């Protein structure tokens, strides 16, 4: 640890004409000729300024240190600007470094090499198997009395129509070979606290009723309660050939008449107690699967009101179990999907489920007439072949969105316009299959603080795009992430397994993403930061502003919003930036404050394309335009800058969702104030500059220099 600031200057094999090598008594200057290859020894505690080529490149080479970067290659050498300008840039970076606390790395101990898998459908089963196979201790919980989830309810899987058991049974038997696996059915997650590597989870297990079972099935014969289980009849006590190998009571419908207790040669207890436990895990995988939209809400289609109108699952089970012999069927797509009154999004798989049901009818009853009514057929990828096949099989396709289903003279009438023929059609059928969409498991997501895009987890996050530097201990797998078919679910489950494994195999993990910090003494609890944060990372806990480290992305928007300067972004604190600008700006300069994700890259691109611009243009790099403080802009103008250009991402392209909109609002106010002060408002401009838009950057600075 050295109190002096190390200034590392790279001449890039002599291609950069070096500036003076003296920056005052607080600095130690070192000269290098290829910092990208020869890495000098630097401690994480050192304060470092690196003057070399692009920070985008150097940051990747020196990920473990805190450094201020000055680009003397693209911003000086390549465009022939004088070495004196490089001096000024470096000196200003040194001023910033002097007043900037190094970013403290956060490390998380992976205390529990154990995972919780929520949901015992195919995704959860596969994740549990993959983790367990790799030596992780796993607890798999399922809220229903049996494993298997949605797939166990199906008759067949698209595209070919292979029986569900071909897929599910091997997955279930895989679990038998797992050593450190606990399977808890009838169990739900009630509460979660902690952080990656160290979560405490509360679980609740409700009784299955059947304590000892020899699978004789006598209970079914005596149970008087008949239940319609999504189109298939069963009793209130029932069995699924998955896991566990024991009958169970569906207490939602059981009347507790006691007949089963009397006849059971094993043991049935109708009054078992609820069991609540707590476990500690290092990672949690959410695999809660599909949740059907309540299609009854699409009232014009008469579900629950008109006999013969069914959901896809019910229809499939009724046909498969031989209780339904449809002769004329209409399959209606988008029943409540892509509809602002219901589900505004496309659930992706319902088009394929609809095709599957059409094929099921044609397979079982080749003579039956099938109409598939879709406003759009989204048989994406190779599922198009299934669509092709069904046209060959004589299924009739109608393009439109039915307005309603009527009951007329005993049959169901589907009224729709057919956009293929431009005619209004009325189709008389005996069965209507509503291919409805799916809703997200928002309850589990909110318990686990999972970031959502609308209702579903942010896909980019899940793919590791966006928050790759954040340690994450909670993953989603399969249809919980977004409705998906069996193949995609299993692929996603394997991906989630490896993400969880990557975490659990480490002893400690660390992050060096800068985060916002709040100085409690300065904070006046005005709460303005809470509303401004695009990630909902700020909240009040115990009368104090608290920043959720898992959610904070380090944009710095809150630090500019805070009227008390209590909120600061690590590495970009207010004082440091202030000193940097004070040192950097001279009379007549044009200060360009550029977003690191877009405009800054355009300035480098300009140099790479050998596009030059005025020597008075001095470029500063910021994490986001939303983190540009108007008082810093005013400082630059007071120091004699002829103008300040703030360059950021295009409106919908902000890396931090809406930092650029915040910046735009601040810019308008700034310009208004300039006018009020009798100054030219055009001295401050916020511009959208894409990462390749070197020409645009040049054009703007030329305009501002006129």
């Amino acid at each position, binding site marked *: 640890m050295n109190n002096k600031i190390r200034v590392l200057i790279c001449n890039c094999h002599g291609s950069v004409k070096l500036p003076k090598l003296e920056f005052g008594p607080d600095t130690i200057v070192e000269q290098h000729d290829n910092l990208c290859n020869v890495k000098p020894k630097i401690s994480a505690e050192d304060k470092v300024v690196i003057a070399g080529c692009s920070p985008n490149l150097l940051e990747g080479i020196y990920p473990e240190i805190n450094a201020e970067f000055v680009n003397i290659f693209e911003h000086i050498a390549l465009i022939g600007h004088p070495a004196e300008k490089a001096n000024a840039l470096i000196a200003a970076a040194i001023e910033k470094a002097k007043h900037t606390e190094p970013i403290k790395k956060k490390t998380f101990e992976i205390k529990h090499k154990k995972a919780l898998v929520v949901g015992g459908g195919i995704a959860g089963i596969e994740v549990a198997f993959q983790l367990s196979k790799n030596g992780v201790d796993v607890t798999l919980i399922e809220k229903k009395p049996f494993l298997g989830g949605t797939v166990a309810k199906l008759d067949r899987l698209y595209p070919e129509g292979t029986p569900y058991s071909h897929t599910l049974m091997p997955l279930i038997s895989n679990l038998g070979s797992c050593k450190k696996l606990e399977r808890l059915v009838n169990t739900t997650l009630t509460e979660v606290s902690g952080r990656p590597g160290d979560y405490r989870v509360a679980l609740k297990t409700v009784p299955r009723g059947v304590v000892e079972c020899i699978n004789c099935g006598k209970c079914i014969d005596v149970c008087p309660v008949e239940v319609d289980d999504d189109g298939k009849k069963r009793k209130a006590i029932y069995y699924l050939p998955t896991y566990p190998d024991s009958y169970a009571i569906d207490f939602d419908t059981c009347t507790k008449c006691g007949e089963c207790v009397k006849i059971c040669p094993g043991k049935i207890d109708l009054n078992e107690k609820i069991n609540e436990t707590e476990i500690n895990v290092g990672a949690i995988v959410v695999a809660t699967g599909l949740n059907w939209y309540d299609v009854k809400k699409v*009232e014009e289609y008469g579900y629950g009101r008109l006999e013969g109108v069914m959901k896809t699952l019910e229809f499939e089970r009724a046909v498969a179990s031989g209780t339904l012999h449809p002769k004329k069927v209409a399959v209606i797509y988008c029943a409540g999907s892509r509809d602002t009154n219901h589900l505004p999004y496309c659930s992706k798989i319902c088009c394929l489920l609809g095709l599957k049901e059409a094929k099921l009818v044609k397979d079982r009853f080749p003579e039956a007439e099938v109409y598939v009514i879709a406003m759009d057929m989204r048989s994406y990828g190779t599922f198009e072949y299934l669509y092709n096949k069904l046209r060959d099989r004589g299924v009739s396709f109608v393009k439109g969105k039915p307005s309603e289903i*009527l*009951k007329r003279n005993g049959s169901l*009438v589907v009224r729709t316009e057919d956009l293929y023929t431009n005619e209004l059609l009325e189709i008389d059928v005996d069965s209507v299959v509503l291919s409805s969409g799916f809703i997200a498991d928002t309850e589990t997501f909110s318990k686990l603080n999972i970031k959502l895009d609308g209702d579903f987890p942010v896909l980019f996050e899940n793919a590791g795009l966006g928050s790759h530097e954040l340690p994450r201990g909670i993953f989603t797998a399969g249809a919980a992430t977004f409705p998906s078919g069996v193949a995609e679910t299993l692929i996603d489950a394997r991906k989630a397994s490896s993400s969880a494994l990557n975490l659990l195999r480490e002893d400690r993990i660390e992050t060096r993403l800068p985060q916002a910090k709040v100085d409690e003494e300065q904070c006046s609890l005005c709460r303005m930061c809470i509303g401004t944060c695009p990630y909902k990372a700020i909240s009040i806990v115990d009368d104090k502003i608290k920043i959720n480290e898992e959610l904070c992305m380090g944009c710095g928007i809150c630090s500019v919003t805070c009227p008390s300067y209590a909120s600061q972004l690590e590495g970009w604190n207010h004082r440091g930036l202030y000193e940097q600008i004070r040192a950097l700006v001279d009379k007549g300069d044009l200060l360009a404050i550029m977003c690191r994700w877009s405009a800054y890259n355009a300035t480098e691109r300009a140099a790479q394309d050998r596009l030059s611009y005025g020597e008075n243009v001095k470029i500063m790099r910021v994490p986001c335009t939303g983190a540009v403080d108007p008082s810093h802009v005013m400082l630059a103008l007071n120091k004699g800058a002829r103008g300040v250009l703030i360059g950021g991402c295009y409106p919908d392209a902000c890396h931090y969702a809406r930092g650029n909109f915040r910046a735009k609002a601040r810019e308008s106010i700034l310009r208004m104030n300039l006018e009020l002060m009798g100054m030219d408002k055009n001295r401050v401009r916020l511009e959208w500059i894409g990462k390749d838009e070197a020409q645009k950057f040049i054009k703007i600075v030329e305009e501002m220099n006129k």
Partner: protein
Amino acid sequence: MNKYAIFLGCTVPVRAQHYELSARNVAKELGIDLVEMSGASCCGFPLKAVDAETALLVAARNISLASKIKLDVVTLCNSCTAMLSDAQIQLNTEEFHSKFKKVGLSYPHEVRVRHFVRMLYEDIGIDKIGEAVKKPLNGLKIMPHYGCHYMRPSQLYGFDNTETPHTLDELVSVTGAESVNYADKKMCCGGSVLGVDEELAIKMANHKLSIAKENGVDAIASICPFCTVMYEDNQRKAEAQFETQYGIPVLYYPQLLGLSLGLDANAVGLKFNRIKSDSMMEKLTR
């Protein structure tokens, strides 16, 4: 006591006096006080297609009359209900209110606008009406026709259910008559296109008339003078255009309700109905 300003509109006071008469007499029986709106004009609906804003201003002027006497408005015509309701909602917007004030109008007191039948359902209620029924219309098969602007657009009303409307069915059932359930209950009478294409309008009216015939109903219950023009006044034309015979009485709902409350045929203006309901009445006296 329930007290309302009654808005008559253009058609009812001149062409459907039996509707007005029966509504007033039913109100009396049920203890409802209907107060006249002196100076009330056309609701404004006929102007909507030409200029929606002018139509709203005409409607809003009518509302201001009720506002001055601090009474909620009940209407007898579906379209008047829609037009006045729309204006009433618009009056709460800054933009429209300023235009409204500009023409010298005022809205000192917030008032609601509802259809007379909706008021019966909401403020009197099925139970209370049931208690007041003295001569139940047992044995009658009545086909309720809701009309469009009784519950649509739902954004305006938030009343009943636009896909499966039920309030008029309940109100018909409470008289002791059987309310016939049928497909296309929500279908439009065609009244709005009568001025544009008569043949088409008759076609639309005929649709429901034929359903009524198939179901062997004793009468259609209407709650809008426009719908009655289509089903009653134009029934002959429909018979001619489609070479069939209907002879189906079209009664305004308050006429039916009045009969069940014990009012006589004159008190509900039965003689003003173009299609005579003799056979229906015979069934009742039997």
